[in-house]
């Protein structure tokens, strides 16, 4: 008996996207409305991770007739191998964009950590409500 389950697959993929958007909203709330500086940095790193995940999700491709997609690496170097990879592979452009974003995200996080230490030596606190001079 053949049952059409593609609607369930579509629903499950949509659940992933909606959960990612919920992550985005939650970490945005953390960046804006949490008073502590370290909490803000943690929320910011989670925000960038979620944006990267949405980018990668756009580049995915579904299974066709039960055949899974493959990674964009050519293992069989003949003509047939290359065309097989083109037929089955996922999109290689979003990983290339996300790759550098992750490393640069770590560099900017390090910069914010240094800035937090300098703030602490000046004000003896990291609570943004007590640092009156930064209030904008």
């Amino acid at each position, binding site marked *: 008996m053949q*049952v059409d389950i593609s609607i369930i*697959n579509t629903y499950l993929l949509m659940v992933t996207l909606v*959960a990612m958007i*919920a992550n985005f909203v*939650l970490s945005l709330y953390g960046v804006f409305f949490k008073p502590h500086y370290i909490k803000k940095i943690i929320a910011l790193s989670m925000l960038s991770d979620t944006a990267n995940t949405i980018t990668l*999700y756009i580049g995915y491709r579904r299974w066709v007739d039960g055949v899974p997609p493959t990674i964009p690496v050519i293992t069989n170097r003949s003509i047939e191998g290359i065309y097989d990879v083109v037929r089955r592979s996922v999109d290689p452009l979003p990983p290339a964009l996300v790759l550098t974003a992750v490393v640069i995200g770590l560099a900017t996080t390090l910069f914010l950590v240094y800035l937090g230490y300098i703030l602490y030596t000046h004000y003896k606190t990291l609570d943004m409500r007590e640092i009156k001079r930064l209030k904008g």
Partner: protein
Amino acid sequence: MWRMIAETIIYLIMACTSIASTIAVYLTIKEKDLVKAVIYSALQSALYTIIYFLLLTPDVVLVYLPVAVGLIPGVFLILISKTERWEKE
């Protein structure tokens, strides 16, 4: 039939992992103890690693894994140990 079920199972793993990561993000935002917040964010990173793997992007997994699992908790713990641990009400 069996291969269709395999496809559904892969998508089901992805959906479960996403929902668990949403819970982890929520707890990170709500937590008052910053060390526990760092641990919850490490849990979120581990779950995101599974999602990246299932999206078939090994390059991103290879760069995200040392950064998010190996480096970022260490850096945050250095900053917490030098400043303060508790977030005030």
